[in-house]
């Protein structure tokens, strides 16, 4: 049972475009949704996160849009840069200091 689903599996955008990564979940108890960025050979790095009481979170070029009713969220990467090329994971947890459930990841390639 895959509780956190991500799409697309891979995404290629041109430099300067907005990349949109999608995530959905099944467990209504999930209340915390972080996005992690991972480069080859490195561990996942916390990029941005949102709590279920909010519907939008911005941090620079990165924005999370959250729809609790539909159990969906998305990560928008504005003005994409080649350095943003990485795999992005959506994750979820129920309550603080709880195990994270990860999606399968979206590989983003930004072409110069």
């Amino acid at each position, binding site marked *: 049972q895959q509780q956190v689903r991500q799409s697309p599996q891979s995404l290629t955008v041109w430099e300067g475009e907005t990349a949109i990564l999608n995530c959905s979940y099944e467990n209504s108890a999930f209340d*915390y949704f*972080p996005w*992690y960025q991972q480069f080859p*050979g*490195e*561990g*996942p*790095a*916390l990029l941005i*996160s949102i*709590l279920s009481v909010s519907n939008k979170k911005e941090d620079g070029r990165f924005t999370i849009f959250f729809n609790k009713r539909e159990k969906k969220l998305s990560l928008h990467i504005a003005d994409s840069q080649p350095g943003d090329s990485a795999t992005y*994971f959506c*994750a979820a*947890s129920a309550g*603080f*200091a*709880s*195990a*994270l*459930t*990860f*999606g*399968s*990841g979206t590989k983003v390639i930004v072409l110069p």
Partner: protein
Amino acid sequence: NAGVIQTPRHKVTGKGQEATLWCEPISGHSAVFWYRQTIVQGLEFLTYFRNQAPIDDSGMPKERFSAQMPNQSHSTLKIQSTQPQDSAVYLCASSLVAYEQYFGPGTRLTVL
């Protein structure tokens, strides 16, 4: 400030040998999580300690895997009688007993 430290970064074992992986959490963080990452299964939760006490080991294989946190500065994951299917990147994350989890670079375990 140093992030989560994991040693060794790479470990190669023969089938049937034991492997011990080390994790040093961020100073002051009282929660430690272990995850495993493979191409096929993705990122999976294994086990979690809070203030050195085991809280949740629901993701740990019942045989051959064990984890300990003897003091607040390190945790170990031990795999006895390693099998080829144990080959993975083992990731440790620490948290201030809050929502955010910060990952180390991982230990790549290869079982021949």
